[in-house]
C-alpha cells in the first residue's frame, strides 16, 4: 500500500529525529568533558514524541515543556549552535547562558520554555491557550510534561479549568515510566495517565510514543479538535528514555535487560525501516542526511566552544523590565539575522467577544435552584 505521507515529510521527520539524537549524544560527551554542568536531561529515546507533534502543528502554535527540553526546540527549528551554547553557559545561548540546559526559550519559534519545577508549566500552557481564546485566534498550545508530573496538584487544577472553559490546549504526557528513579507504577494509583482526563470530562488517549507517525496523527487530530473550540486534549505518549534521568544518574533502578528490550523499539530505525519499505528512499539518502546532521552538530559544538561567557554586566539585566525596554531577540542579537517576533493587538484594537459563562447559563442554574437574584 502506498504511504499516505509524502517523502518530504517522512525524510524531514527522520532528519529532525536524527538531529536530536546526535545533538544529545554530543551534549552528553560535552558534559563528560566538563563543558556542560548542573542538570542535563537527555531526550534520547523520546525523539518521536517531539518530532511527530511539531510536524502536525502550525509554526505559530505555542509550545512549552519541562526541563527535558532540547528536543522540541531543535525540532521547531532553533539554532543548534545557540542551544548548545546555552548548555555551555555562553553569551551566545538563547538565554545568554542564564538558563542553561533546563531553560531553553526560543520565542521566535514559539517555544516558550523549559521549566524546572515539576508540573509548573502546566497552568502556564492553559493561560497561553486562554489568551488565544480571549483574542479569538485559532492557535493551539502544546504542553509537555512527564509521568511523574501527572501527580502534581497543578495538573488537576489546570485540567479542571481548561475543560470547563474549553481552552485550545493539548497536553502531552511523556510517559517514560520513571520519575527520576521511581517507577510510575510505584507511586500512581492509576499509572495510565490518559485516564485522568475523564475526571474532567476531557478527551484523553494513549499514543505509541515510539512511533513518530502515531504521534503525528494523534496531534493532527487533537489540534483540529482544539481549533474547532471543542476543548483540551490529553495525550499520553508511551515512551522510554534510553539514558539516565540526567547525566548524573547511572540508572541502577532498572535492569540492563529492560533497557535492551526497549531499545529494540528505537523510533529512529523504525521510521527508517518504514521509509525504506515504502521504497521512498534507500541507504544513500539516509547516509547523506546523517552526514549533514553530524556536520551541523559538530559546527554547533564548535560555535559554543568558541563563544565567550556572558559579560558580568548581564547580571543586572533581564530581571526587571525597565521603562521602554524592548524584548531580546536572540538570533538577531547573536547572529545578526532579522527575525519575526510575536506582536499582540493593542488594548484599543482588541475586541473581546468570548462569553466565558453566558448569562443565560448562569441564570438557568439559578432558576433551577429556585433562586431569584
Amino acid at each position, binding site marked *: 500500500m502506498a504511504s499516505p505521507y509524502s517523502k518530504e515529510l517522512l525524510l524531514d521527520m527522520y532528519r529532525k529525529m536524527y538531529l536530536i539524537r546526535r545533538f544529545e549524544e554530543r551534549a552528553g560527551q560535552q558534559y563528560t568533558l566538563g563543558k556542560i554542568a548542573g542538570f542535563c536531561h537527555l531526550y534520547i529515546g523520546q525523539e518521536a514524541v517531539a518530532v511527530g507533534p511539531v510536524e502536525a502543528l502550525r509554526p505559530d502554535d505555542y509550545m512549552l515543556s519541562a526541563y527535558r527540553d532540547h528536543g522540541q526546540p531543535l525540532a521547531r527549528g532553533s539554532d543548534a549552535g545557540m542551544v548548545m551554547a546555552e548548555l555551555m553557559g555562553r553569551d551566545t*545561548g*538563547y*538565554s*545568554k*547562558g*542564564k*538558563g542553561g540546559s533546563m*531553560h531553553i*526559550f526560543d*520565542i521566535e519559534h514559539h517555544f*516558550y*520554555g523549559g*521549566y*524546572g*519545577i515539576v508540573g*509548573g508549566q*502546566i*497552568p*502556564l*500552557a*492553559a*493561560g*497561553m*491557550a*486562554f*489568551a*488565544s481564546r*480571549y*483574542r479569538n485566534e485559532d492557535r493551539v498550545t502544546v504542553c509537555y510534561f512527564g509521568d511523574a508530573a501527572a501527580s502534581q*496538584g*497543578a495538573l488537576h*487544577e*489546570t485540567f*479542571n*479549568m481548561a475543560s*470547563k472553559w474549553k481552552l485550545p490546549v493539548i497536553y502531552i504526557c511523556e510517559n517514560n515510566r520513571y520519575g527520576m528513579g521511581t517507577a510510575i507504577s510505584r507511586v500512581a494509583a492509576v499509572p495510565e495517565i490518559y485516564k485522568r482526563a475523564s475526571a474532567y470530562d476531557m478527551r484523553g488517549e494513549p499514543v505509541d510514543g515510539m512511533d513518530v507517525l502515531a504521534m503525528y496523527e494523534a496531534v493532527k487530530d487533537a489540534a483540529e479538535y482544539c481549533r474547532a473550540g471543542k476543548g483540551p486534549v490529553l495525550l499520553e505518549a508511551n515512551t522510554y528514555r534510553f539514558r539516565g534521568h540526567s547525566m548524573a544518574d547511572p540508572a541502577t533502578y532498572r535492569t540492563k535487560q529492560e533497557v535492551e528490550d526497549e531499545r529494540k523499539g528505537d523510533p529512529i530505525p523504525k521510521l527508517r525501516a518504514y521509509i525504506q519499505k515504502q521504497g521512498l528512499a534507500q541507504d544513500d539518502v539516509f547516509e547523506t542526511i546523517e552526514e549533514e546532521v553530524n556536520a551541523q552538530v559538530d559546527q554547533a559544538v564548535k560555535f559554543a566552544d568558541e563563544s565567550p561567557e556572558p559579560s558580568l554586566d548581564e547580571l543586572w*539585566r*533581564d*530581571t*526587571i*523590565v525597565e521603562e521602554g525596554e524592548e*524584548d*531580546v*531577540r*536572540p538570533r538577531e542579537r547573536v547572529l545578526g539575522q532579522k527575525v519575526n517576533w510575536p506582536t*499582540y*493587538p*493593542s*488594548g*484599543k*484594537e*482588541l*475586541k*473581546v467577544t468570548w*462569553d*466565558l*459563562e*453566558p*448569562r443565560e447559563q*448562569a441564570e438557568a442554574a439559578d432558576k433551577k435552584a429556585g433562586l431569584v437574584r
Partner: protein
Amino acid sequence: MPELMYREALNQALAEEMERDANVYLIGEEVGRYNGAFKVSQGLLDKFGSARIIDAPIAELGFTGLSVGAAMVGLRPVVEMMTWNFAILAMDQIVNNAAKLRHMSGGQLRCPIVFRGPGGAGGRLSSQHSQALEANYAHFPGLKVIAPATPADAKGMLKAAIRDENPVIMFEGERLYAIKGEVPEGEHVVPLGKADVKREGSDVTIITWSRMYYFCMQAAEELAKEGISAEVLDLRTLRPLDEEAILASVRKTNRAVIVEEGWALAGVGASVVDIIQSKAFDDLDAPVERVTGLDVNMSYAANLENATQPDAPKIIAAVKKVLYREGA
C-alpha cells in the same frame, strides 16, 4: 475631590484600566456574580462580561499559573487573591515562574501581571487568616511589591501596577477597604517605587506602610501634643525600596522608628534598618527602633489579638525611646 472608600478607589482603578485596555482582565474567587469577597469588583461583571471578569474555581495555584501564562503572550491579567493567606498555595507560580520568566528566557519574555488582595490581620480570625506576608514577596528579585495605605494611593498605584511591564504584588487590607479618603478623579497614576512623606516633622521619622500608617498618624498627633514633631514616611512600595526618601528623612530628623505589622525576623523593616545604618550611620542620634507584630501566631481572643499587633501607644513608646525620653 470626591471622598471614596479604599475599595471604591480600587474599583475605579480597575474599571478605568479595563476600559482603557482590553488586554486587562480580572480573575479570582467570587469576583464576578458575587461582586467580590470584599466588593472591590462591584458591578464589573455587568460592565465587562464574563471573559474579562472571571469567577475562578478555588484553585489558587491553577488560576495564578494560568494568568502568568496569559501574561507571557500579551494579556495583562489582574489576579485577585481572596486573601494573601490563600495565595500561599499559588506562591510557586509567582516566585518560580512570574518572577523568573524574564531571567530564564534571557530577556525574551515579559510578564505584566498584578496579583492583589488583602493582607494583614482580618479581625478575630485567628492565625491562618491573619498574617502580614509582604516580607516574603519583597525578598524576590523580579517582583515589585506595593502596599498603599490611603484610597488615593490605592487607586493611583493599582493603575500604575496594571500598566507596569513586570509582575506586581499588591497588598491591600481587609481593614482598609472601608476607610475613606479624597481620591482624584480620572487619570491619577502614582508611580511605583516612590515613598511619600504623609506628615512632615523634625524630631523623628516614623517609617511605615499599609494599615500601620493609621496608627503612626495617630501616634504623631499624640506626640505633637507633647511637643514632639514626628515625620511619617509612607513607603507605599516595598520592592524596590525608596532609599533616597528614607535617607533624606532620617538625615533631617536623625532618628527613626519603623512600624511593621508583620513579624520582626527577616521583616521589611530589618532591610530599612540596614539601609539607614549603612548609609546614614553618622546622621543618627539614636539606634533605630522597630515596632512589629509579636513573634507569635495570631490568636482569636480579642485581648490576645490586640496585644499581638502594633498600635499607637507602642509607637509612642518607641519614639520616646529614640528621643531618650523614656518614662518622661
